[in-house]
């Protein structure tokens, strides 16, 4: 029962981490290697606002979300747009931005376990005989709500449908008057926003450390590859596969091996089914 409950929690965490990455890649085919950095940045900004400026929790969170979304959009508008379409430069530049943010934060004093956000709700609850922190329940609950919201956004609103059109066929979308660059900015802002949301929900479980940036990037990428790059349902499903695989590894093999799970998942996927669980339509184009 432990495995089931914690597996679900872990999977929801992973899904939250990966949502932003898969959104950006799905719409603009841009691997955002700064994803993890934006995640840590959101946590750090809200910590600063809370502890240095004394802003109330909810407001601090909202400001952090807005700022990180703005950073994401600006990143595209100022830098990435100039090198759009040059795959090598895109990867290097987004990775460089991420590194600059992360190592800049580390230099700026973000080290050790002193930085942490309070959980939204204290205490714990017993579900099916397993004691679970309220915060973890919140993670799962908000995760479900957010995925639902994202689904509604993509399928019901004009902007969402435009993004979806962009993802499906860029040229057709262009002929219908959808601006490719503006959509890419929107998707970067949204992707950064969801990285920030994930950070604010997940970070209260631990402390804010720079290493989390790399960890989140790796996990997000692993989920996306296993699910099929750019496929949202695939990413959700993959989050559950990897989430449960991790919990099972910890339970039966020992916590040491947890770090390998993501890598093994990627490698097995690349060997057996390179386009991921749900990435069938890209098979021809990406597999030579």
């Amino acid at each position, binding site marked *: 029962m432990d495995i089931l409950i914690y597996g679900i929690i872990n999977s929801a965490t992973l899904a939250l981490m990966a949502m932003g990455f898969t959104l950006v890649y799905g719409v603009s085919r841009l691997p955002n290697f700064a994803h993890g950095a934006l995640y840590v940045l959101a946590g750090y900004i809200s910590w600063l606002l809370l502890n240095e400026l004394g802003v109330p929790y909810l407001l601090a969170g909202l400001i952090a979300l807005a700022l990180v979304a703005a950073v994401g959009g600006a990143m595209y508008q100022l830098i990435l747009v100039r090198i759009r379409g040059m795959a090598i430069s895109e990867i290097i530049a987004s990775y460089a931005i991420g590194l600059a943010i992360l*190592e*800049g934060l580390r230099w700026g004093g973000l080290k050790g376990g002193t930085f942490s956000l309070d959980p939204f709700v204290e205490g714990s609850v017993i579900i099916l005989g397993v004691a679970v922190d309220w915060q973890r329940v919140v993670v799962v609950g908000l995760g479900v709500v957010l995925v639902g919201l994202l689904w509604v956004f993509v399928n019901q609103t004009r902007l969402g449908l435009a993004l979806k059109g962009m993802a499906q066929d860029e040229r057709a979308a262009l002929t219908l008057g959808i601006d490719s660059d503006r959509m890419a900015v929107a998707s970067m802002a949204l992707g950064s926003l969801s990285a920030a949301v994930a950070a604010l929900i997940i970070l209260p479980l631990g402390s804010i450390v720079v290493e989390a940036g790399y960890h989140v*990037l790796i996990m997000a990428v692993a989920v996306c590859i296993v699910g099929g*790059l750019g496929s949202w349902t695939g990413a959700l499903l993959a989050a559950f596969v990897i989430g449960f695989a991790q919990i099972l590894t910890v339970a039966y093999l020992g916590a040491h091996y947890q770090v390998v799970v993501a890598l093994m998942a990627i490698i097995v996927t690349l060997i057996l089914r390179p386009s991921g669980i749900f990435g069938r339509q890209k098979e021809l184009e990406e597999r*030579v």
Partner: protein
Amino acid sequence: MAREREGMRKERLDRGIKVRSDGVYSISSWREMSFLLAPRLLLILGLLIMPLVLVPAPYWQKVLIIVCIYAFLALGFDFLAHFVGLVSLGGALYIGVGAYVTAFFNVYLGLPIWLCIPLATILGGGLCTLLLWPCLPLRGVYFAIVSLMFPLLSARLIEALDVFGGTDGIMGLDGFSNSWWEMYVLISFMLIALFALRRLVNADMGLIFRGVKDNDQAVKASGISITFYKAVGVFIASSLGCFGGACLAHIYMWAGISQFALDFSIIPIAATVVGGGGTLAGPVIGCLILVPISELLRDFGTLRIAVYALILMGFIVFKSEGLMSFGSRKYNQFEHWVEI
């Protein structure tokens, strides 16, 4: 820098001497020959003389060694990125694997140093290729992602499983017999690697590599295995890195998880972008510029990496051709303004 002028455009023409020295006429006179040889000799002799010049400053001799080690990585990165089309974000993997393999042979099996380094180069290169093999049949960002993950994870794995000395690393490797050996082995092999790679990319095999990068379907249609050639490319690049890593381990007489550090991944990329991607000599020049800066910034800790990342971004956005292409254009051509 001249600014854009209204109604004018810049015209570039090859210098006469460049045209004359292009073909077989280059041996017609000493002037043409020295035009061709000067830049190459400047680099070769400059590097060979450098250790002697730096005798009064032993610290900077060490820096020169580090420059060479980064230059190996940068050469490998440039070769992979601009000739095979694979972006490797994890140069630290090659350094780490090379260091651990040579430490294994030297400390655990007691082999001598002149056997360990070649073994580490070949076996380490093979091991890295094997690790990266699953993402080679695919196009796109997979290689970048997986190569980014390996150094981060292998450091954590060694720490968690407590193998190969765990967090302490493997100590007690044989050093080089004196520091002149260290410097001249590294410098000469670095120069050999540079000019060998420049040859390779213009040989038949180099054509296939470029084909893999630019139009893999055509290469496949010609009955050539893309995966195999990508693997060969990765093997070449990772062997270079492993050689650097093995030398590094013997110089410090220690192999540890800090050899999977992020510096080894980011500086070569920055050096390539600054020096000029696709020129092979550019990355070496980039290393000669960036690594000393890195040593000067050592007091600032991890801010160094942030500084590199910013330099990198600046160059990639505003000056993506790099110093080497810029320099060779100025050397080979002259420019003037003409009416449109």
